[in-house]
């Protein structure tokens, strides 16, 4: 168990180093950072001074080590567009993205599980057909189209919900939250639906497939033979066993929810990290791009690691198979 955890942790560190190399080479090889800082008519001597002050004439390994040491302390340099430290910008925007991603995930879990269980138990009803149609749409419609559709319906036509921004936010320490004000909650509805729809589809399909499989197993048949109520069999036995893979997938997907928030945030002008990243890509703001890449990778790698370890804790059968190759 310890060996397994350790090996996974080393792998995770390896991935982070690889991502760090990519982020660093973006700086090093994608254009000259000096050009981004000085103006066009700066004399060559002054350019050299800037170059020296940034440490750009040191050997590449030295620069890489310095970049990595700074990144490990969340120092990502200064944004070309905003002239502010990137870490401040990211910290400012992170609560918005995390709140949106969390809401979308909760929404996707609740509705995905409900719809999945229903369509597995009542296979041929109209509602099931409807759910399946919704899931096909959820996979086929690009995220931004869903967002535009919602805006047209609820903002332009009906005027019920705001089409952009977070509404009023409350500041708690360094964290800003929109969950405590009415306008904040209203602003959260459409972005969460847009972001969560794809995950909901995924979870619904997964729950349905797992439920159908579990319902065929012997222990369910045995539970029926014992005369348990249908409700106890379906929800006490069958659903409980389908939830382990569902929670794994939802956990692993949380990383990609944060990445997909890029699109949702652009549609709804949601002031999160994703919008910052898109603006950085449009304006070639490399420090922000590199920092975003590192932050998102860190989140991904951490989630993967935690899920892997939790898996062995939850499912004792895995422990024996893990020990063998070690």
């Amino acid at each position, binding site marked *: 168990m310890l060996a397994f955890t350790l090996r996974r942790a080393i792998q995770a560190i390896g*991935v982070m180093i*690889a991502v760090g190399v990519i982020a660093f080479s*973006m700086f090093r*090889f*994608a*254009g000259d950072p000096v050009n981004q800082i000085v103006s066009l008519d700066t004399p060559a001597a002054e350019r050299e001074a800037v170059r020296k002050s940034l440490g750009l004439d040191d050997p590449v390994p030295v620069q890489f080590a310095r970049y990595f040491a700074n990144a490990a302390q969340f120092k990502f340099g200064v944004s070309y567009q905003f002239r502010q430290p990137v870490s401040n910008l990211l910290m400012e925007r992170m609560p918005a993205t995390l709140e949106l991603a969390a809401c979308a995930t909760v929404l996707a879990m609740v509705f995905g599980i409900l719809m999945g269980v229903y369509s597995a138990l009542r296979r041929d009803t109209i509602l099931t057909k409807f759910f399946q149609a919704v899931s*096909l*749409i959820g*996979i*086929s*419609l*690009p*995220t*931004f*189209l869903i967002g*535009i*559709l919602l*805006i*047209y319906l609820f903002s*332009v036509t009906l005027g019920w919900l705001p*089409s952009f921004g977070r509404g009023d936010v409350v500041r708690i320490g360094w964290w800003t939250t929109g969950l405590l004000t009415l306008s904040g909650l209203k602003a959260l509805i459409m972005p969460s639906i847009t972001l969560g729809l794809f995950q909901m589809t995924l979870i619904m399909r997964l729950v349905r497939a797992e439920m159908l499989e579990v319902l065929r197993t012997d222990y369910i048949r045995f539970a029926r033979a014992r005369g348990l109520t249908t409700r106890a069999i379906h929800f006490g036995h069958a659903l409980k066993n389908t939830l382990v893979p569902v929670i794994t997938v939802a956990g692993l997907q949380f*990383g*990609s929810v944060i*990445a*997909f928030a*890029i*699109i949702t945030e*652009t549609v709804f002008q949601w002031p999160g990290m994703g919008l910052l*990243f*898109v603006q*950085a*890509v*449009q304006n*070639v703001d*490399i420090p922000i*791009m590199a920092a975003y*890449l590192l932050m*998102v*990778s860190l989140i*991904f*790698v951490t989630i*993967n690691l935690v899920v892997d370890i939790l898996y062995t804790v939850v499912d004792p059968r895995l422990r024996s198979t893990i020990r063998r190759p070690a």
Partner: protein
Amino acid sequence: MSDAVVPHRVEQNAPTARSGASWLKRALDSDIFYSFRRSRMTMVAAAVTVLFFLLAIFASQLAVQNPFDPAQLQLMNSRISPIWTADGQSPFLLGTDEQGRDVFSAILYGLRISLVVGLLGVILAGTLGITLGLIAGYVGGAVDGLIMRIADVQLTFPAILIALLVNGVAKSVLGNRLDAMSTLGVLVIAIGLSFWVQYARTVRGSVMVEKNKDYVAAAQLIGLPAPKIMLRHVLPNTMGPILVIATINLALAIITEATLSFLGAGMPDTMPSLGTLIRIGNNYLFAGEWWIVAFPGIALAGLILSINLLGDWLRDALNPKLR
């Protein structure tokens, strides 16, 4: 089954002039065509997909104007609503936008760009993935380990993030030299680099199974070089699943391109794809000019939905477990 085999055998002795017809007959007799005819939804999806391809191919014949040639646009014709509404005007079937551009013509040209980027992206991803998968599976050892580790790492990141990064880096390297054509190239590369992993994994898996079979041993025995064995003998046996992945990937590639263009990191306004059109149209949504964004959106959604349906059907039809 025997009915299908007998005419085939006769046909082999027949004059070669009829081999075209016999190929058609075999295709019409096949299991896949049978399952195709059984599913009405698939037939509709296929028809819609073919229609979209035809619209894209004959875009310049069907369009009433070249929507991106400023000389052909007249501001007099701006903001006309679709033809069936009260303010509609012929020949602007789906209305016009702010600059007097015909929405229908813009969709035809945009569809062409979207399909070209999608197809080229899938071809690049497929070539890259198949090559690396063949090498990993056939050579094995450290090479295999390295390729698959890269694949694992890449798989943890969503394709759209990778595509955005490739795009951003290309922009900073090329700077102002990035015109519409090279943007198209960058998008193809971004999509190719984002989607190769699935091909590589599938091919590698199939190759690991195939390479232990007698025919590979026989080919090695008669001294065929390894690349030839891989390409001519092993690869054809892995094509089924690849075809399925490629179909579903085409839909994903088109979505990715549209998303990048929508985010402003894709095709420029001078040579728009469907995604660019949606981004432009989105600005007029609040002015009540819904048709500028709605019709490109419907075209994109219809295209992706029908390709997805085809992919789903192909997956089931080629899956021997479901027969």
